[in-house]
Structures are given as C-alpha cells and as structure tokens.
C-alpha cells in the first residue's frame, strides 16, 4: 500500500524522487498477463457505468474534431492494426488519429484510443507502431482506468481523487471535452490518464504478449522506447538542460531506462528462437506516404533541433532520401546559429541531388544560392521550383526574383 501510494506520487511529480528512492518492482511477466475482459465488454458496476457515460460524450466530441486526420485509407490501416494486437477486444476498440506533433497515444477507459500524428512520424516500421497500440490495448484489456480509480478511493487519497474527479466532471461540463490539442498541451489528459507504475508495467507486459501473438518482433517496443529516450536527451542537451518529463505520456513515467530494460527481458521471454519476424516496414511506409511530408514539416517547424535531428537520423537508419535530407537542412536553417546558414545551404544542395526531393528543397536551395551571391545558379534552382510547383502560393514572389 505504501509502495503503491509512493508510485502514484512519483508519477505525479518527481521522476528524480522515484529514481533516488530506488523502488525496484519485480518485472511483470508477459505470461501472467491474461486479459480481464472478453469481446463485447460492457460495464455492470455503477461507478464504471458512470465513467463510460462521461467518456461516451468525450468520444462524441472528439470524433467531430477538425484536428483529426480523416484520410480514410490511413484510418482503416490503423483500425486494422488494433484488430491485430487488440486481443479479445480487437473488434470493440476504436482508433482516432489527431494532428498533434508529439510522441503520444492515449487509451480511454471505454476502449477508444487517440494516436498523435507525432507518433506516426517517429515509427520506423509497423511493428513499432503495433507495439505502442498493443501497450494501449493492454490498458483497456486489464481495466486499468477503473482499477486505478477504485484503488485511489480506497486509499482516500483526497488529492488524487479530487484531481481525477475534476477531470471526469470537466468532461461532463465541457471544460476539456473535444478540445483535443488543448488536452495535450495542458497536460490535462495526462493527469487523468496517468497510470501508476504497476499498471504501466502491466500494459508493457501485456503489450509484448499481444505483439508476439500477432507475429511481430516482440523487441519492437524496447526499440521505440530507446528512440524516445535518445530524442528527449538530445532535445534537452541542445537547450543545456536535463531531460524533463515533457508532455508525452511515455515520458511522464518514472525511470524510462529501467522500463526499457524490462521490455527487453519480456521480449526475450516471448521471442521464438530461429523465427523470422516481419517488421511490416513496406506496408507502414505505404500507409503513411500521403502524410509523411506533412509529419516531418509539423515537427521540424517547431524548431526543436535536438529532437528533430534525432528523429530524422533514426528514420535515416533505413536509408536517406530527398525528403529526409531536405528536412535535415530545414532544422539547421531554423536553428539559425553561427555557421548554420552554410550547413543548411549544403543540406539543400544535397537534398536536390535526390530524385524525390520535394519542390521546397529547390526553392530553399535557390534562396541559399542567392544569399551567397550565386545569382545565376539561384535562378536555375528557382526555375526548377516553379516548374515543379507552378501554382505554389509563393510563385509570384519567386517569379519576381527571376526578372
């Protein structure tokens, strides 16, 4: 009981405190993770029925939000993934894709999940994405929301119950309902759906089990975790500070390193030696192709150079292309430190060497050449840009430069 409460407090405020306390929970084994609900689950207890009613309203608001990415093919692809790793509730769960450039995904207690577009940007393949979805499914299959709610009430943890109650009531009163991105920014949702570390460990173990059952490499979850840790560290280092807990659901959990270690061990438990696992990279890239440029754009323009660089380098492990090179140059242009103009200029020059360089790469290549006093070459680049994007909104400005 003491441990549980301390874990909750750690989740609420102090990563450092949790680390220094040296709380060493035993790893939860994937084999111990049986789903607690079956297909078509509906609540029967009064408190849970109430929670479901509130969440029904949240989902209704959310499904009409103009911040959702509505691309039908992509949404049905995501729904298909939850069908693969959703266990007994595979047919009951719903998935929504929100255009928010952050690494995050949230499972609501009634079985709908919101995937942030920033998550799709960061995944190298289908197995990694399936791992995150499997983790979220784990929260639903293990009834985490209602378990945590009841756990807190029995401990009469007044503040925690108040915080939770305020969140639920807020939904009813329309305080946060439907205002999806505000949720993400204000951390409201994180205070509502921050599970204690035991429940997170359960979702990890359950996720690994679901992932393996669906035929994905179980280690994909640990890989994702490793990518996130590197990204947070690099981002913080650029700004000369320590990694903060950020607003990512994953980042708020205590001790990411120990969690990653547990994920690796769990993956080993369920990995079948000699089996060849398909990471689904081809399918994944095809599914996100229509929005990949947009995902990169949304991230890079936030001018968080450490995070953006880590993301692009991670994606480039599978091979550089014109799109990645272009956005790498964009990072330097926006970072705007001494010498970055030269770095960006050579980045754009490299990007246009690829057949798949976007039109914008030629435009910026032109801008950099022009600033370097290479007017004739700049005109060639601008002309190429206009040939590729004759109706570009800035075409009138660029045409003037050609005169």
């Amino acid at each position, binding site marked *: 009981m003491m441990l549980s409460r301390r874990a909750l407090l750690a989740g609420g405020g102090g990563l450092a405190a949790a680390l220094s306390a040296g709380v060493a929970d035993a790893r939860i084994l994937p084999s111990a993770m049986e789903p607690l609900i079956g297909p078509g689950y509906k609540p029967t207890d009064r408190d849970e029925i109430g929670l479901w009613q509130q969440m029904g309203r949240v989902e209704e608001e959310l499904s009409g*939000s*103009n*911040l959702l990415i509505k691309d039908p093919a992509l949404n049905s692809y995501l729904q298909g993934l939850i069908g693969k790793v959703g266990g007994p509730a595979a047919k009951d769960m719903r998935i929504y894709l929100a*255009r*928010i450039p*952050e690494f995050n995904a949230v499972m609501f207690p009634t079985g709908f999940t919101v995937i942030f577009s920033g998550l799709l940007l960061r995944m190298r393949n289908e197995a990694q994405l399936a791992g995150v979805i499997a983790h979220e499914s784990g929260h639903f299959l293990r009834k985490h929301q209602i378990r945590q709610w009841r756990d807190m009430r029995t401990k009469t943890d007044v503040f925690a119950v108040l915080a939770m109650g305020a969140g639920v009531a807020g939904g009813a009163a329309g305080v946060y309902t*439907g*205002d*999806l*991105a*505000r949720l*993400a*920014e*204000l*951390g*409201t949702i994180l205070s509502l759906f921050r599970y204690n570390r035991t429940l997170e460990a359960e979702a990890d173990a359950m996720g690994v089990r679901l992932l393996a059952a669906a035929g994905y490499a179980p280690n994909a979850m640990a890989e994702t975790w490793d990518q996130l840790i590197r990204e947070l560290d690099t*981002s*913080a280092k*650029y*700004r*000369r*500070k320590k990694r903060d807990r*950020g*607003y990512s659901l994953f980042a708020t959990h205590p001790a990411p390193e120990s969690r990653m270690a547990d994920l690796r061990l769990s993956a080993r438990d369920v990995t079948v030696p000699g089996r060849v696992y398909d990471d689904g990279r081809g399918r994944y890239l095809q599914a996100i192709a229509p929005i990949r440029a947009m995902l990169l754009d*949304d991230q890079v*323009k*936030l*001018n*968080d150079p*450490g*995070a953006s660089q880590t993301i692009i380098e991670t994606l480039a492990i599978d091979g550089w292309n014109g799109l990645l090179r272009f956005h790498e140059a964009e990072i330097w*242009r*926006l*970072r*705007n430190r001494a010498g970055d103009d030269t770095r960006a200029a050579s980045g754009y020059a490299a990007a246009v060497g690829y057949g798949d360089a976007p039109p914008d790469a030629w*435009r*910026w290549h032109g*801008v950099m050449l*022009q*600033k370097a006093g290479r007017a004739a070459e700049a005109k060639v680049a601008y002309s190429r840009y206009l040939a590729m994007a004759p109706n570009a*909104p*800035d075409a*009138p*400005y660029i045409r*003037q430069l050609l005169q």
Partner: protein
Amino acid sequence: MRRSIIFVVAAALAFPGCGTGLGGEGIGFGGYSLIRARSVEVGDGSVVVTPTREWNRVSSTWSIDDIRAVEDWTLNGSSLDSLSFVTGLKGGRYIIRQSKRAAQQVPKFRSDMTAPEVTAMLESFYRVKAGTIDFRTIGLSPRQFMGYPGFQFDFDHLDTDEVWRRGRSVGAVIDGRLYLVLLDGTRSHYFNAALPDFEAVANSARLQR
C-alpha cells in the same frame, strides 16, 4: 489560446501545464488603451501610422512582453482579431520573449533574411507559440512597404481551439531591421471585417528617422 504576440504569451502563462509556457516570465494581461483615428507612433517609435478608425491598444505597461519593437492592437478582442506591429527589430533579436531553455523556439531574426525566411519565422511563431496545428501559406508576393521593396504574406491557420484563422502581413527588411504589420482574425468573419482598416494602416505607415 493564441492570438496576438502579447496575448499568446499571457495565455501560455495562464496555463502552467502548457507546452509552450514561458516559465514564469511576466505577470499577465494588461489593460487596453484607446488609439484614435489620427497619426500615431507605434512600437519603438520609428514608425508612424494613421488609422482610419479607432483601435484598442493592448497595454504594454502590464504586458509580459516588453519587446519595444512589438506592439499589438485589437478591435474585438485578441482571440477574434489582432493587429501587430514589428518596428525596427535588429538582427539577432526575437519577435517574442521566450526562455532560452524552451525545447521549441521561435527562430531569431537575422538582418540578412529574405522574405521567405521572414515568413518561415512567422510560421514557426504560430506553431511554437500560438498553438497552430495546421498552417497554410496562401500567398507570398512582392509589395512595397513604407516606400521600400517588401512582401505581402497571406496565410490560414487552424489552432488548438479548432478555429480557422486568416492572416496577412506586409513588411520589409530595411537597413537590416525588420518592419511589418500583421493582421490576424477568425477566417469566418473578423479577418475580412478588419481587412480594409488593416490596409489603411499598412498603406499609411511611414518610417520616422
């Protein structure tokens, strides 16, 4: 959540959990003061404009944003419409106050920036500080500003409050310093309603040396 440069900072402070928060700089909203329909100095005093109607100036006395080069006006409140001035901003400076430790930052202005770079800086401002989710450039074309060759930048943006807004900025880099006027308002009504008044202000702007 968003709006004119000053409003946005204040809003970020009002919600301490906000990812774009500035970490305790400043104190909050100030009041408004009346701008009459006659010539008035704006920003650092280097630009004079002559509005054709009255506006409300967002007070900088209480504002958290003490950048002298920046000034904000509004007609109906800054979440519906706002008019911002950037006057004589030097290279190496920012159009907004922000913590050096913030992960996401509005890029600094450089005196050799071209129009596409200035507009990209504005776009990052919206994405980093104003909660913009979707930003679309509608147009970038050459336009004289205060008698100097400059640009006109038109754009739409969808923000976290699920409202589409539209903006127009007219500006120029003169002797390495940035000057611009920027109108921003809800796309469904307030932008168009304020556009003639914005044009009057932008066309009346003159440099005062």
